[in-house]
């Protein structure tokens, strides 16, 4: 072979490569330490296992900051290759407007309907029978974190349920420990209310309110119980002026507060502080009253670009995100649960194991994000935080306004 043909061949290979290798900009809001480590697993997988290149488009400041940026990029005709949203109704309008890539053929080729567990995750990605997003992890709100040491100081057993916890409250208060740590942000109070509603009103009534938008149930006796407990929780959280959820978690770590109701992401804070599940802290899924997890989380959406090469690359990425090795690497770093039941995480502690067991037994519920529109969620956030910070507002008053919001959402 002459040099000339060699060069020609090399050029041809380069040209052929250039057609298929895409630079894929992926937008997300994972910027904290553990999150960044997790997302770099995706980047590594894409760079190493395909011809494409991962361009990181991280937006700091959380979902509320990032989502408008993403939406304006998509509407402005300069969409990223992929972007992260929470499961559920957040992207519904973009799908209706035909701006999202239909992933149904990837899902069929990869058999997503068989591997994604719980199936409700895939339902949240499905619109009119077509699949538009790739779920990547499961986060659940249904956890109460307890400081073993705080209960020891107060001379009571670490409770096994919300009922036992309420009995321990006087002893805790006597020992100068804030029974419940709650941050000042509205989503924390609303999320906590959701957990209490599932635990105290029961799964059936919770679904009737959140899925079927049944205002009668929201006005009913079971929800009155929830609001009463929520009002009690309001009194028990007095004396701790913190804003962020991790500051509240920190109060539990330092044993100045006895418990916090917060999603499984709080466990990362305990791990960073060097605490061990079972010894230093305990966890109660479903407040120990019901054995259930809600299954929220994150999913990737792929905007329509009109470029067939990019489309192929997007589908390749979608399949890659759900592949077993990537799922393990990502979720181990993030501290979330994998969306497929057939993989094992590398490190599993007592609390994560409890969560995995619940998933394996299909004791799951869809998350609030999947059932309620962002608009309704905002209204509920406002109501809950107003109630939380207005001691003169009664549980009955809050319940009536809650029922009205549910009514108007229906």
């Amino acid at each position: 072979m002459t040099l000339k043909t060699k060069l020609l061949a090399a050029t041809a290979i380069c040209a052929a490569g250039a057609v298929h290798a895409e630079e894929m900009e992926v937008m997300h809001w994972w910027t904290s330490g553990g999150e960044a480590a997790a997302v770099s697993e995706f980047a590594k997988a894409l760079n190493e296992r395909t011809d494409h290149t991962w361009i990181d488009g991280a937006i700091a400041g959380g979902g509320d900051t990032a989502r408008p940026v993403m939406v304006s990029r998509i509407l402005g005709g300069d969409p990223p290759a992929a972007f992260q949203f929470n499961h559920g109704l957040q992207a519904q309008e973009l799908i209706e407007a035909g701006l999202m890539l239909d992933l149904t053929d990837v899902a069929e080729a990869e058999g997503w309907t068989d591997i994604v567990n719980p199936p409700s995750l895939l339902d949240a990605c499905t619109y009119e029978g077509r699949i538009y997003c790739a779920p990547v992890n499961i986060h659940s709100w249904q956890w109460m974190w307890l400081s073993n040491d705080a209960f020891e100081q107060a001379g009571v057993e670490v409770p096994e349920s919300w009922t036992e916890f309420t009995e321990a409250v006087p002893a805790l208060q006597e020992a100068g420990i804030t029974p419940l740590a709650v941050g000042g942000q509205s989503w924390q109070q609303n999320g906590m209310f959701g957990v209490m509603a599932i635990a105290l009103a029961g799964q059936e009534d919770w679904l009737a309110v959140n899925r079927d938008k049944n205002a009668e149930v929201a006005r009913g006796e079971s929800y009155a119980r929830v609001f009463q407990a929520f009002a009690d929780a309001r009194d028990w959280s007095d004396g701790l002026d913190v804003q962020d959820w991790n500051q509240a978690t920190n109060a539990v770590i330092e044993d100045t507060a006895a418990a916090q109701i917060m999603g499984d992401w709080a466990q990362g804070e305990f791990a960073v502080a060097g605490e061990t599940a079972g010894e230093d802290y305990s966890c109660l899924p479903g407040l120990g009253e019901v054995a259930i997890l809600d299954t929220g989380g994150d999913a990737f959406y792929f905007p329509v670009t009109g470029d067939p090469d990019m489309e192929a690359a997007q589908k390749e990425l979608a399949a890659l995100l759900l592949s077993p090795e990537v799922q393990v690497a990502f979720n181990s770093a993030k501290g979330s649960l994998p969306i497929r039941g057939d993989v094992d995480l590398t490190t599993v502690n007592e609390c994560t194991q409890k969560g995995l067991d619940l998933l394996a037994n299909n004791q799951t519920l869809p998350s609030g994000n999947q059932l309620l529109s962002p608009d309704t969620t905002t209204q509920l956030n406002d109501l809950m935080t107003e109630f939380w910070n207005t001691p003169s507002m009664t549980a009955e008053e809050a319940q009536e306004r809650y029922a009205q919001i549910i009514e108007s959402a229906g």
Partner: protein
Amino acid sequence: MAVASDEGRVSTSRTETAQARRPVRLFRNLMSKIALTPMILTAVVVFFGGTIWTVVYSFTSSGLLPRMNWVGLDQYERLWSTAKWLVSIQNLALYGILSLVFTLVIGFVLAALLDRKIRFEDTFRTIFLYPFALSFIVTGLIWQWILNPDFGIQGIVRDMGWESFTFNPLNDPDIVMYGLLIAGLWQGTGLIMCIMLAGLRGIDEDIWKAARVDGIGTVKTYVRIIIPMMRPVFVTAVVLITSGIIKLYDLVVAQTSGGPGISSEVPAKYVMQAMFGGQNLGQGFAASTMMLLSVVIILVPWALLEFGGRKRG
């Protein structure tokens, strides 16, 4: 071309000039008018176009994307039955009135003191103006720390031995707006002081001499003579302050995020929250239309009185 032909006509025939001049008026100062065209277009298209578009879509049920789905006054009905919006309006009124009064008073008093030919005037001026160089975000964060009960003023005073001292505005729904007000005043008075100082420097020295000859006291001279003479300066200051009040947003976001609860919410934050947090454009548009309406009702008559009257006189 039109100009050239017009000019030609003017030079050839005098009798035609009188008739020709009227339409020509449009072309007077042609260059400056051409130069202004982009700005006029921007104002008309962006401001008026955007405003009308927003008002029209506030009558729709637009969610994440604007859609022409007419719902009449539904968005407004919901707006005015929302506790958060009502609280926002009250907060803005409280903050607005207090901020306007205190900024003017403090700004003027500081300027008057600096104008008494004191030593180190430059130093003081720099110190007072410095906060204005900071954005509201930085201001908000600084004051969040200063007012933090554990590390800020309350913590320091308690460490010095006064154990029962309580100053925790950011966690008390009743007084949280005053916590914001302190930060706003700290940031904003410096600029107003400088404007006032410029106004004071513009007062002729002879006025002071005349007042002294007549035996009028210093304070009385300020109140009865100097302040009325500084009317245009005050107008400028009021316009600057009010526009700052209406768009109050970043300070709240940085300092309290609207909390505790909803007790420090403001209208601009409600708009942002509805449009981007709640994916409900229609509701956000309705709220911003109400903001526009309040500005129109309050500011336009005042501006007409202030600026329109002068032109005629």
